[in-house]
């Protein structure tokens, strides 16, 4: 009997405890949040700090930041979870993944969450260039967070040695080619010891190429993501300019230029001008042992650069309370002060104009004017290439570009082949 009573007592306690945990579990809203790390710096620490601060201000919400690898790993994990299991409520993914996520029916638009005038004012505070990759079909699917553009870094010492004004970077295509030929140095046997300029072409050449295309007056796709324009004369012309730098002027290294080693080439003075992401700013600042400058990309018909980087998305497999909580966090993480601090800490471009008016950012720019170049270029920036079946359509262009740059195909044939392949892939989305 005694034993039985004991068992009863234990059982009772268990039931009580169970009730208590159930009651507790109902209180906070769980928000799992996937994020990738794509640049150097203590990103994980910053994000964990955000989560802690946010929870302190919002006790009803339990934000769970989960580091999920590269952008590629993160979307793979999120989409796999959508198909089987529990996806995150919110995640940072490439802005160009928008159509993929819509086609998989994985995300919800922000329009249903934006209710107050304050929310609408918040939405309109982002740079329009960043919103181009975040909206389609009249709806907003992503909120800009860690965004970037392409800029040109140049070695001021090399400029001086070549008799160029170190404070006047090339402003046009013609100038860039002229400067590059002055900056290209050859040794006695004709081997190049310092190249004039280099534009990386490994992995995702389309992104850097898109800079040339926009400068030549067009873009690569429509905003509905159903058409691409790889074989437009302006696009072929942009590729021809790039190829001429390699083959005619011989001021750009031949073959495929590796993205990952390009900053190192620059530090080693193997190249005087390089095109790469603004996200490399902190890296260059720390590692370049010479005076360097940052410039907007040169113009042909106009200035221009594609945007890049990641947006916040909210996943469909979630409760309304979770969506509200995630939305609250996204608004919290993109206030002017936080957008500014995030930009300073990481090198990403602060995503809204008023972030640049904050005291912290003003002080930072005053000490390091190069940080503002990306901002000044934003009015000329356009959406990054993104379509339905995005990665495949993009691969068609990448393959064409690499074929042209390795001399396997002439410019017009490479782009026509890429266009044919892209048309085939996109036919079912028209």
């Amino acid at each position: 009997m005694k034993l039985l009573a004991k068992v009863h007592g234990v059982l009772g306690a268990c039931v009580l405890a169970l009730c208590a945990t159930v009651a507790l579990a109902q209180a906070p809203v769980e928000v799992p949040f996937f994020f990738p790390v794509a640049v150097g710096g203590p990103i994980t620490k910053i994000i964990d700090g955000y989560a802690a601060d946010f929870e302190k201000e919002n006790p009803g919400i339990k934000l769970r930041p989960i580091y999920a690898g590269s952008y590629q790993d993160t979307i793979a994990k999120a989409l796999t979870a959508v198909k089987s299991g529990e996806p995150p409520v919110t995640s940072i993914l490439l802005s160009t993944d928008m159509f993929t996520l819509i086609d998989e029916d994985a995300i919800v638009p922000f329009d249903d969450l934006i209710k107050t005038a304050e929310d609408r004012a918040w939405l309109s505070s982002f740079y329009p260039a960043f919103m181009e990759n975040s909206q389609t079909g009249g709806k907003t699917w992503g909120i800009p967070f860690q965004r970037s553009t392409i800029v040109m870094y140049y070695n001021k010492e090399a400029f001086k040695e070549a008799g160029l004004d170190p404070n006047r970077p090339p402003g046009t295509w013609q100038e860039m080619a002229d400067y590059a030929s002055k900056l290209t140095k050859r040794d006695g046997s004709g081997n190049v010891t310092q190249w004039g300029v280099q534009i990386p072409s490994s992995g995702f050449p389309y992104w850097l190429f898109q800079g040339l295309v926009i400068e030549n007056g067009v873009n690569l796709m429509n905003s509905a993501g159903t058409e691409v324009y790889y074989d437009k004369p302006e696009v072929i012309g942009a590729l021809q300019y790039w190829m001429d730098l390699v083959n005619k002027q011989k001021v750009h290294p031949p073959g495929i230029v590796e993205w990952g080693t390009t900053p190192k080439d620059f530090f080693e003075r193997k190249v005087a001008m390089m095109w790469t992401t603004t996200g490399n700013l902190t890296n260059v600042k720390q590692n370049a042992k010479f005076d360097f400058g940052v410039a907007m990309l040169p113009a042909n018909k106009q200035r221009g650069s594609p945007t890049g980087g990641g947006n916040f998305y909210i996943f469909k497999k979630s409760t309304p309370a979770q969506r509200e909580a995630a939305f609250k966090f996204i608004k919290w993480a993109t206030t002017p002060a936080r957008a500014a601090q995030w930009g300073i800490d990481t090198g990403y471009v602060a995503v809204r104009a008023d972030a640049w008016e904050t005291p912290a950012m003003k002080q930072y720019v005053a000490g390091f004017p190069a940080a503002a170049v990306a901002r000044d270029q934003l009015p000329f920036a356009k959406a990054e290439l993104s379509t339905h079946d995005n990665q495949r359509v993009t691969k068609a262009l990448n393959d064409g570009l690499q074929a042209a740059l390795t001399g396997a195909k002439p410019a017009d044939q490479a782009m026509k082949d890429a266009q044919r392949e892209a048309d085939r892939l996109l036919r079912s989305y028209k």
Partner: protein
Amino acid sequence: MARTREWLYAWLLLLPASALLALFTHYPAVANLWHSLYSTPKAARPPKFIGLENYRALIDDPIFWQALVNNFWYALGTIPISIALALLMAVWVNERLPGRGFLRLAYFTPTVLPMIAVANIWLFFYTPEYGLVEQVSNALGFGRHNWLGSKSTALGALMVVTVWKEAGFFMIFYLAALQSMSPHLAEAAAIEGASRRYFFWRITFPLLMPTTLFVLVNAVINAFRLVDHVVVMTRGGPDNATELFLYYIFEIGFRFWDSSYAAALTMVLLALLGTVAILQFVFLERRTHYQ
């Protein structure tokens, strides 16, 4: 009665392994075949039975064929060389020589390193202008070359990494086999006055055949399995010159999200590897002497 007990006993012993095999090998293979006969589910389009449509698409896919051809050359270029090197190194470090332990360690080191780290190291070896390979070839008076950045040399450059990585691993198997070989054989051969070369080709090499078979099967599987360095070094570029079969499956499955087409490609890989393994066992078994 005793017989049934024995049967039961045998089956119980086999159960854990066969359950794991069925769950993680056989079921996925069959499920994969099943998926490859359906269209890829998209939000608005549930999967529907399309029969061999994915396989038909595969025949028209130029990148599939290129990946297959690339992988063929990759296998042909890496397997014989890494096995020959492994054998050479094993015989060499099996001798009594000073610093033998250190030499063995040195040969084995590449195997211990993670492939991603290896790929990053080699990425800098191959860097144009100031990479290690460039510096050496410059010092020797050869011209410059962008090894990973031209279609003609990119695949070869990856093969070198693979051989470097694999040879040390295979060496360990050969070394173990050599160590277990009876020293009487060498003594007897020495008394008979056989030359070292004769001894190697007539005694050592045939006795190593079981190891060679094992290593060969592994090497073939690895030739299709090792793609980590592709991800880091070239991502299949330039213009698909280093697109290997498994990497292509990964791209289709997890970048393009075309899971049923990826399933069809996986079936091809499975069939290919299965055939090669059967051929190896059937033909080489005959020439293999087990001690």
